């Protein structure tokens, strides 16, 4: 328990260790810790930013979905309207077409009737002439009796 040169030795050792610690131990460790701190802060920052971005994107997506639903409904409504319009048009057209066809057919029929009547008239006059000739025993001069024949035909 004597005080002696050991004190001096210990003092020198202390100075040496402090110097070494100051030069080679403290700065790299502290700078590594600070760097990591900065990195972690950066990471946390990025994470919160990403979360905000995600929220934003989600709300935007929801909005877009709502909008597109709305648009789809509009389109469907328009399509329905258009469809009924097309159907109406088609009905109208077919009605017109049908009327036209009916009119044409009636005209044809009228025409046919007239022609048949004309034929019939002609044949009747001929038949009358032949009958008269038979009755009179001689041929009737058709040309001489034409006026009579025509009169007959008109009466028929």
């Amino acid at each position: 328990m004597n005080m002696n040169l050991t004190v001096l030795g210990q003092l020198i050792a202390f100075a040496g260790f402090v110097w070494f610690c100051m030069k080679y131990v403290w700065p790299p460790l502290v700078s590594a810790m600070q760097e990591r701190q900065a990195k972690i802060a950066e990471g946390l920052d990025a994470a919160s930013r990403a979360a905000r971005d995600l929220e934003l994107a989600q709300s935007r997506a929801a909005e877009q979905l709502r909008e597109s639903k709305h648009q789809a409904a509009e389109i469907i409504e328009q399509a329905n309207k258009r469809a009924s319009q097309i159907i109406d048009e088609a009905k109208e057209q077919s009605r017109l077409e049908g009327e036209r066809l009916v009119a044409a057919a009636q005209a044809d029929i009228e025409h046919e009737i007239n022609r048949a009547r004309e034929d019939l008239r002609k044949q009747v006059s001929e038949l009358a002439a032949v009958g008269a000739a038979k009755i009179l025993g001689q041929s009737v001069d058709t040309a001489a009796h034409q006026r009579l024949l025509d009169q007959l035909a008109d009466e028929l």
Partner: protein
Amino acid sequence: MADSSQEYITHHLQNLTYGKLPAGYVRVNKYDGTETELTTSTWTIAQSSQEAKDMGFMAVHLDSLGWSVFMGALFVWLFSRAAKKATAGVPGTLQNICESVVEFVQGMVKDTFHGRNPMIGPIALTVFVWIFLMNSLKWIPVDFIPGIASMLGAPYFKIVPTADPNGTFGVAIGVFLLILFYSIKVKGVGGFAKELSFTPFNHWLFIPFNLFLEVLGLLTKPLSLALRLFGNMYAGEVVFILIALLPFYAQWVLNIPWAIFHILVIPLQAFIFMVLTIVYLSQAHEDH
């Protein structure tokens, strides 16, 4: 038994001393009692407590100095290994441990020291870890390393450097010199002298009284640092030695609780030494 017990205790409290014996000194052989007179002054290893005492100041405690330097080297080696490979990415185990310690010390410095001085951190870290490592040698059973040393021929061996007043005073004087250095650096010689002369009573009539108080206060700082650490460690050591006097089968009843208690004492003393170092250096930086 009383005699041998006393011998055992004093033996365990004696450092391995290498020093200068003056010419004409009579050495007594402790085994056969023969006396030899030295013709010239010689540097040698003390073979008895009396010889160690007679060597006076010109002596070195090889065990204290060796173990403290070894522990300091261990600190420096471990931490510089961690520092060399330090990355800002995911740290390894060693780096993790070292960073925890550094962060702890840094927190203490930030809380206590309000100036700006990049030296305070390394000083506090060195003080804390080094003293902790030196104190922790107490956990090694008291007869273990001294037994090996005596087999190797060393007459005495005491491994805890902080249970040697030389060990604690060495560090405390280092802190004291730092206090003086920073006081003068921050305040200038005049400012420091003025602080010593005009506090606590700011009147020229009180200068001698103030000087007496302040110088005493200044000198008390290293003294309290050194004696507190030494007292705690020495007392703990003595208790371990006393427990070692018990029969071997009964020792565990006392020395296990005592060793567990030192899980508190050893870091606490290192911590107190570090905190007081920071506080004293902080005071040295304060301008009144």
